[in-house]
């Protein structure tokens, strides 16, 4: 159970007592009004998302890939950062659930005139939004939005902090492709690259340690700043566990079950953390040679968009072991599941019981 902030903003707080028992999960409810990060989501709730995603994939396989469950629900997609794939993924997901979708790309709206985030949220709410999917360049922005919004906030990525829907679709993709079944206990998962600036890495830390995976973070030492301290702290947090932080690429890749390469955040890099992209590619780029250190049936992943030739070699991106396109497909299904569960948790007024 997570604690809710008592003032009614619906912001849940860690810790969550999560069990990572493999296999069976008793029917469980989704208990969160918002999805801001995975630090407050229990393992049974994560499994519920996985199962709901299965059902959404079945919907996507239909000739008419649409269900009416969110009919009359206003979903506003508010992206302060340029992103085509995630924004469209959310829009498609919301439309597949028959929601009324408003898509705001902040660069073209009054936000550029200096309208504050709080003002924008209030305006969007007044215009009928029941749920807001928000992406923002500053860590923590979705929490501010949640404090001023009566509906549900779904974090589509904030600064370096969190990208919960990405971590969940990563988990779904791993579970769906892992040889030997979906149980991640003891399976070696490596996140490789610019960890320091990566919200994908941070959210994956919460979900993969909750899943019991043997998680490794690897990259140049300048891009691993602070994570060793977190690894030590997380070992003491109920429902999670330690992870390994290293700049030794060979040790990280050896016998890995999953390798996730992160985009080198060129646009976020400042202060000279790396000599050059060329040097990064030479020392840490995921090439076929390096991939050979992992298990032969290793899964290759990348949250996209890729800098081919930098963090990942083009041959690796199209290798049969790459499940990168699965990630994109699964992204729509996972987001449909999340919109569905969040809408249920927010709960419209019940009509007469069906039967």
């Amino acid at each position, binding site marked *: 159970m997570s604690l809710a902030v008592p003032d009614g903003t619906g912001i849940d707080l860690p810790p969550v007592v999560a069990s990572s028992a493999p296999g069976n999960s008793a029917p469980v409810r989704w208990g969160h009004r918002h999805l801001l990060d995975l630090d407050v989501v229990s393992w049974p709730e994560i499994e519920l998302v996985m199962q709901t995603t299965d*059902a959404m994939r079945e919907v996507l396989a239909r000739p008419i890939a649409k269900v*009416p*469950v969110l009919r009359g629900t206003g979903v506003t997609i508010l992206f302060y950062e340029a992103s085509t794939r995630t924004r469209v993924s959310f829009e498609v997901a919301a439309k597949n659930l028959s929601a009324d979708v408003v898509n705001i790309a902040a660069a073209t709206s009054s936000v550029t005139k200096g309208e504050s985030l709080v003002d924008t949220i209030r305006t969007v709410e007044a215009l009928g939004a029941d749920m807001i999917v928000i992406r923002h360049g500053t860590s923590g922005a979705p929490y501010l939005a949640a404090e001023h919004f009566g509906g549900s906030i779904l974090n589509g990525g904030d600064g370096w902090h969190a990208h919960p829907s990405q971590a969940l679709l990563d988990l779904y993709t791993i579970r769906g492709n892992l040889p030997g079944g979906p149980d991640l206990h003891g399976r070696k998962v490596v996140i490789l690259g610019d960890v320091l600036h990566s919200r994908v890495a941070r959210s994956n830390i919460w979900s993969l340690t909750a899943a019991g995976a043997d998680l490794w973070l690897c990259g140049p030492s300048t891009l691993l700043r602070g994570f060793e301290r977190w690894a030590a702290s997380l070992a003491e947090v109920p429902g999670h566990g330690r992870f390994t932080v290293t700049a030794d690429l060979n040790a990280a890749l050896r016998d890995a079950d999953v390798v996730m390469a992160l985009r080198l955040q060129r646009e976020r890099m400042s202060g000279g953390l790396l000599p050059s992209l060329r040097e990064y590619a030479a020392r840490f780029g995921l090439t076929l040679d390096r991939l050979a250190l992992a298990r032969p049936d290793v899964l290759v992943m990348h949250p996209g968009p890729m800098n081919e030739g930098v963090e990942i070699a083009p041959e690796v991106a199209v290798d049969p072991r790459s499940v990168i396109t699965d990630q994109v497909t699964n992204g729509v299904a996972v987001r449909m599941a999340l919109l569905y569960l969040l809408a*249920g948790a927010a709960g419209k007024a019940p009509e*007469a019981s069906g*039967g």
Partner: protein
Amino acid sequence: MTGRQIMTADEIRRATIRISHEIVEKQAGTAGLALVGIQRRGVPLARRIAEAIAEHEGVTLPVGALDITFYRDDLSLVAQQPLVKGTDLPFDLNGATVVLVDDVLYTGRTIRAAMDALVDFGRPQAIRLAVLIDRGHRELPIRADHVGKNVPTSREEIVRVHLAETDGEDGVDIERLVGAVAEPVAG
């Protein structure tokens, strides 16, 4: 079963057989028929009806399963019963006469949702409804073509169908709830 039993295993069996005959009779044969069970207990019922028809007509009708979770009109139920059990319709609906099968017919909202779901998969020529129990209190203009047993109930009572495939035994019981209006049983 904790309540008062209103159907025994034998009575269920006989009702199922009668319904299977009625379905064929109404269609004047088996051509074009397909059975679609509504998750959860409508599915084993649909299979039993199909088996009975196969026995007395020698024809195996297609059987599908329909999950109406995403077609309900009440989002607050999502929080309580979010789990989805799956839809599987392994045949072409277009031009078919689909007989929806469910265990209990109550307000009619489940059937409305089921019809919405069905038409997303294709355009049946006709849709009919077979239920084991009709307990009254319709809120929508929906009626069953084939009924196992009509049971007058009050809104404070809950009707539970048990089937061997899902609950380990066959039987139907009815129980009065204290201080609550009967909610639909999960599935």
